[in-house]
């Protein structure tokens, strides 16, 4: 079995009101070194695949179809066995 990870994030240029609110909270807490916060989502996927390249292809397919909305989100896939 292979473990895949998909990270989904709002694309640059798409407003992230949650990230902005978190950033404001951090600044209020005194963490004045915070310069920007973008939120995202991570999926851990237990899967079958013959090799790493095949696993990544499978992850990319489900990311494009379901896990991410390509209009507003980008994604990155990682695989470990």
């Amino acid at each position, binding site marked *: 079995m292979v473990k895949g990870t998909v990270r989904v994030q*709002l694309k640059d240029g798409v*407003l*992230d*009101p*949650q990230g902005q609110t978190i950033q404001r909270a951090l600044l209020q807490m005194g963490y004045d070194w915070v310069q920007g916060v973008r939120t995202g989502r991570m999926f851990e996927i237990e899967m079958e695949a013959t090799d790493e390249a095949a696993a990544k292809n499978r992850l990319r397919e489900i990311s494009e179809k*379901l*896990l991410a909305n390509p*209009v*507003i989100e980008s994604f990155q896939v990682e695989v470990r066995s």
Partner: protein
Amino acid sequence: MRFGVVTFPGSNCDYDAYAALKRVLCAPVEFLWHTDADLKDVDCVILPGGFSFGDYLRPGAIARFSPVMRSVIKFAETGGLVWGICNGFQVLLEAGLLPGAMVRNETLRFACQWVRLRVDSNRTPFTRGCRPGQILRMPIAHADGNYYADDETLMNLETSGQVVFRYVNAAGLPDEKSNPNGSRRSIAGITNREGNVLGMMPHPERAVEKILGSDDGLMLFQSLLGTAATGVDTPLRKRLVSDRGA
């Protein structure tokens, strides 16, 4: 015209849409179940408001792959009338039947309030009974109604007259204060290029009787039924007018 109202797990405006059609407009209407690909030969499919599949992942993202949606997509592509309201609009965006996407309201709050909508296009089957620029009052109730599309998509929507509704102030103008969710260009509703698919965040089915606060939503149903004031004077319209006058 026969209507079908789709019920997904988590839909909660399906009965409102059904009641508006059946009880107020006396129009033929059926429920369509999400696992059933049969659209029962209806002329207009309504994807109602609610929280299909708990809004898990993204609003509409899971519902979009329901068996009924495979039929709805085919139906829309062959010119069938499809009307997504609130969560239904989100489903249409996820399904790619309408361009763009919804993101979380700018305020991060669930917006539950009355809004003014300006009809920016009456060249659709859903709004042909309205005057261009007419203001309609309807409620909204959503957390993810912040319409996003890139600049090029927005320009295409504007130039081809696909922006049907905008949030506006009392003077009929869009501004920051009257935009409840941060939508780009104050967009509240759009159609596809062909005009047979409409998505809108406000709830016309909750504004069909004066006692509800507004009956402006009737305009849209009546446009479809051909019974709006500027439409054909059918027996149904006569009955409606006399009912409402009584």
